[in-house]
């Protein structure tokens, strides 16, 4: 049958062929996306996008992970720039396995993210000054006051994070008005009630 979709009809592309072949393409790079939904709340990992650079990753992330409710900021990091700890289980915390280490090399600011429950998202907990990944873990164990069991830790150098600019925050300003993307905009109970009453009366 011919397509019922006028967009497809317009393209006039050759009749469907049985033999489908797609040129194999390599993947673009992977970027991890962190979102702040309200001022003051920690940035939380929301997922990934594939993109060619961090600017484009930001464009993509903004609509894939911030097109509903509210958003006040977004951070983007190349997946390959994230250092990942082992994942622990039950009552064992990643920090139980971290030994104190000192380092006098050039220190850099590193952002630290914790996973509090398997299956949930990593959350930003703060930044430490560290020379490398092991040092960052040890510094974070020492300086970040953590009450909960931490099952996994991500460390990203602050300079590897693309952070949305303060003056760009207006790009999210109309988000709360986009109610057409939200279930609450579609209420039908009154119409059903009216319909049933009409039926009962006829």
């Amino acid at each position: 049958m011919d397509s019922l979709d006028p967009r497809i009809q317009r393209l006039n592309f050759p009749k469907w062929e049985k033999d489908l072949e797609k040129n194999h393409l390599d993947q673009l790079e992977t970027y991890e996306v962190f979102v702040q939904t309200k001022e003051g709340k920690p940035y939380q990992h929301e997922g990934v996008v594939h993109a060619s650079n961090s600017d484009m990753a930001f464009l993509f992330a903004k609509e894939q992970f911030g097109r509903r409710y509210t958003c006040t900021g977004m951070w983007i990091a190349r997946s390959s720039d994230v250092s990942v700890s082992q994942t622990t289980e039950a009552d064992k915390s990643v920090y139980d396995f971290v030994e104190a280490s000192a380092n006098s090399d050039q220190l850099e600011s590193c952002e630290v993210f914790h996973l509090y429950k398997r299956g949930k998202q990593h959350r930003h907990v703060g930044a430490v000054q560290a020379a490398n990944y092991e040092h960052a873990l040890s510094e974070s164990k020492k300086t970040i006051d953590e009450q909960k069991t931490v099952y996994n830790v991500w460390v990203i150098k602050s300079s590897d994070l693309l952070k949305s600019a303060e003056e760009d925050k207006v790009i999210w300003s109309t988000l709360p008005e986009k109610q057409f993307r939200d279930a609450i905009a579609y209420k039908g109970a009154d119409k059903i009630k009216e319909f049933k009453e009409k039926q009962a009366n006829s």
Partner: protein
Amino acid sequence: MYGGGNIFEPSNHNDVLNEDPVKLQEFEARIERGEKIEPSDWMPKLYRKQLIRMIEQHAHSEIIGALPEGTWITRAPGFKRKLALMAKVQDEVGHAQLLYSAAETLGKSREDMISDLINGKSKYSNIFNYPAYTWADSCFISWLVDAGAIVNQVANSKGSYGPYCRALERICIEESFHLKYGHHCVIHLATGTPKQRQMMQEAVDRWWAPMMHFFGPSDKISVHTEILMKWKVKMASNDDCRQQFLDMYVPKIWELGLTVPDTNLKKNEETGMWEFTEPDWEEFKRVINGDGPCNEERLAVRRMAEERGQWVRNALKSADMKYVTPLA
């Protein structure tokens, strides 16, 4: 949106027997405790393989599922519907993005998955091989196909694989918009003018059989999936999902004065189970194997979109770019 009827390969027990027994035991104990498996954890080969297969089919169903409703995207009547349908179809693309990413954490790239889709090597939900003839068809899909998908996805979101659960939680929130929007559309048609009403009834008549197929063949005739249930890959039986759907939505269809084209459909008050005419599983098999009214078109359109976009994606590539799998 996705139903049951996952096509699992019959599991070969030798696969599991060859696994390291200590690691296997730890893995199963973790699932038993209700903890999620994360990408860096050890997992049996069979678990990885079946999960990739399932999540991939789910992702394909989203991207192909954008097509039947997309048929009406330029024709939605009025601003409210126009904005909502655009957002709804966009969500399906978004869901595909989330699901492909979840599957990628298991080691198969998105490009490979999409290749398998358009080369016909991988399945997607059968229901999208049917045409959306009128606006009312798109309303049926938004409401009831998504309703069916929610039944399945809520069950799956309690499964054992972390990245899939995270994706599903997000998806289920968005699906609640689809469900309400779709119901809103159907209410307006069913309680509207005689012409609108007729349009809606005809859509229900057309889509009922595919809807019953949506949850997959009866458990009595499906491949055995005990180990997948134990590993919390498969979370609910096809028959249970179908029963749950009927229980929740048949009364809502009836209250709008619409009829369902199955005279045997009724709830057995003693057993609490819905009785219905056995769906035509031969037709189901035929369509899933490529012979439905829209199989060719769906894949051809997907391939065309890939081909038209190829120069764009090529331009984004550079030699020093290195793909890594998503972290979570």
